[in-house]
């Protein structure tokens, strides 16, 4: 099998702090990591390779620094990695991003088109979950999102059966290769790369593809110019105007304090009292 996994290097958003006074993002000390959701996709791909043979190629689009994310992916056991990086890609929205990545995947698969393209559910900085569907649509892959389990793969019949999460339940689907799979978080546990994997990753010469190397000619479809959406304003959420009612714990026992809290709740929301019905005290 020829499997491609799309990953993204993102700032560790849990570490992002907004400066209390200037409301600007405090950039110092916000390290970059592999988008956590993508690691579940990588593990799923590695499991398929271990079972059916073939190779897993990891692809990312980003600045030169994103090569570190590819190195880490190789260290987990991926076979090859490609960095898609070009000044023209700067400012791409999801539409332009899916265009560039789709072209790179086609270029990757010239000899042997990939059977499955894996992505994470979404990124923790973009959170749009749109690039996966974009790639599927452009490469005419079957689109299987929020997949929780790959039930079976039949390479001869080029069929695949998966379970995916949908509203209110789990859908079982039978589809065909090639397909795009976005993996839900929590479905597997990422392995630890072996010594050999780590050595290979540390020595890998990861190629950087500019637009031309990825077979992209239509520069107008890339970067800002290829992006229908544009960010006009970035601002901090405005703190609530009226200050919260402060209830201080004067002495240690909670009695009076608790009654005060409940009083303020019911005074603020009289209707609430009616809707309180303890549901079967266990």
């Amino acid at each position, binding site marked *: 099998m020829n499997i491609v996994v799309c990953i993204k290097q993102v700032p560790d958003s849990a570490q992002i*702090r907004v*400066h*209390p006074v200037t409301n600007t993002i*405090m950039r*110092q*000390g916000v*390290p970059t990591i592999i988008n956590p959701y993508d690691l579940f996709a990588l593990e799923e791909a590695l499991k398929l390779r271990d079972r059916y043979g073939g190779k897993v190629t990891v692809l990312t689009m980003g600045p030169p620094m994103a090569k*570190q994310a590819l190195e*880490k992916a190789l*260290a987990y056991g991926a076979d090859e990695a490609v960095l898609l990086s070009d000044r023209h890609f700067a400012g791409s929205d999801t539409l332009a991003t899916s265009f560039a990545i789709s072209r790179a995947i086609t270029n990757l698969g010239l000899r042997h088109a990939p059977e499955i393209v894996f992505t994470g559910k979404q990124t923790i900085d973009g959170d749009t979950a749109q690039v996966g569907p974009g790639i599927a649509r452009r490469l005419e892959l079957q689109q299987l999102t929020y997949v929780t389990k790959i039930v079976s793969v039949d390479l001869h019949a080029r069929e695949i059966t998966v379970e995916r999460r949908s509203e209110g339940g789990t859908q079982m689907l039978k589809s065909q290769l090639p397909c795009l799979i976005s993996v839900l978080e929590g479905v597997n546990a990422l392995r*630890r*790369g*072996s*010594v*050999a*994997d*780590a*050595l*290979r990753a*540390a*020595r890998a010469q990861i190629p950087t593809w500019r637009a031309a190397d990825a077979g992209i000619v239509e520069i107008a479809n890339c970067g800002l110019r290829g992006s229908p959406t544009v960010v006009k304003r970035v601002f901090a959420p405005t703190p609530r105007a009226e200050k919260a009612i402060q209830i201080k714990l004067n002495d240690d026992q909670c009695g009076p304090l608790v009654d005060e809290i409940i009083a303020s709740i019911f005074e603020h929301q009289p209707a609430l009292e009616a809707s309180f019905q303890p549901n079967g005290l266990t």
Partner: protein
Amino acid sequence: MKGEKFHAIVVGAGMSGNAAAYAMAMRGLKVLQLERGEYPGSKNVQGAILYADALEKIIPDFRDDAPLERHLVEQRFWIMDGASHTGIHYRSDDFNERRPNRYTIIRAQFDRWFSAKVREAGCTVLCETLATRLKQDSRGNVTGVYTDRPGEAISADVVVLAEGVNGFLGTRGRLRETPKPDSVALAVKEMHFLPEDVIAERFGLTADEGCVIEAGGTISRGVPGLGFLYTNKESISIGIGCLVSGLAAAMERPYDLLEAFKHHPSIRPLIAGSEVKEYAAHLIPEGGFTAIPQLFGNGWVVVGDAAQLNNTAHREGSNLAMTSGYLAGKAIADVKDRGGSMVKSNLALYKSMLDSSFVIKDLMKHKEMPRFLHANSQNLFVSYPKLISKAAQSFVRVDGNSKLDKEKATSAAFLKARSRWGLISDAVRLARAWR
């Protein structure tokens, strides 16, 4: 890839590990470096001061691209009691030289830069890899390292133990003891972020001049300890380190000492309005010369904090670490060049290089200092600071009492506290420990 073999494996990507790996890689050795953190620096904690003199010997043009915060122009030594500090400040424009002597750095960024140099020199660096055990043959000679990654051990002619003060591998391989509670200090530290110009204003600095404050006294509540405050470009590293045995005996909480230090009237205004972004803790070797373990053996050498190479009196560590790492690398490469094997007798070269360097000389000079500080902690960290600050205040305060009376009262206070004999013996013992 059946058990690939290397000339050398360096365990740890801190100051000593990077220096050793760089030295050997530059001499063409096939070197593998293991770092248990996500990236070099993610597990390293230090004040932190970089001593240019040590790094110049390894990477002469480091100033071109190394991430340096401020070059130091002012050193403040303070003796503190509850409400005051009495100090000696030394600041000189000479330090605004073309190649400044000392810098403040941020370890996570600096170690990552140093590791990039190590990789450029040809060393293979594996991160997120914990070395779990030494591979030793029946006679105890070290022949490689086991890691926590699937796959067998990695073999090498020599293993450079640059694993830090706890010496995880060394103690497990019975090459040394776990450090004693009275030979290590626990430092807790916070990174306070402030705009660059606010820092410059508060310490009277221009451009990227830097200032360091090191303070002893009642802030460590009788435990031998030292508070420190380093100015970085747009942050201040502030912390306090105390002898572990002292902390345990006094049942003191390090984070309470740090909060008290931060709230001290002399410190609070310097960090007012800051945004704290990290809280770290680290052990610092304080045993001095007497705590240095066996430094070499068949197939291994120990460098940096793992060899307890830290000068307590001058609070210098990273230069000793870098130098010991570099010398170990140099010695191994020399042995290799003359076709020698990595046996104990050949590796003695590393120890002799170390002996003739400042590293052992300084540690020999101050080998009594740790015991001196430890034995007299109550006097040195409680009584003297109080006496000194009272003396200073009485000297400064104008209250109608005659100067003669004031001096008499001050000397009476010293005599009452330490008696004539106590004062003399303290002075003699201090001088002997310092000589």
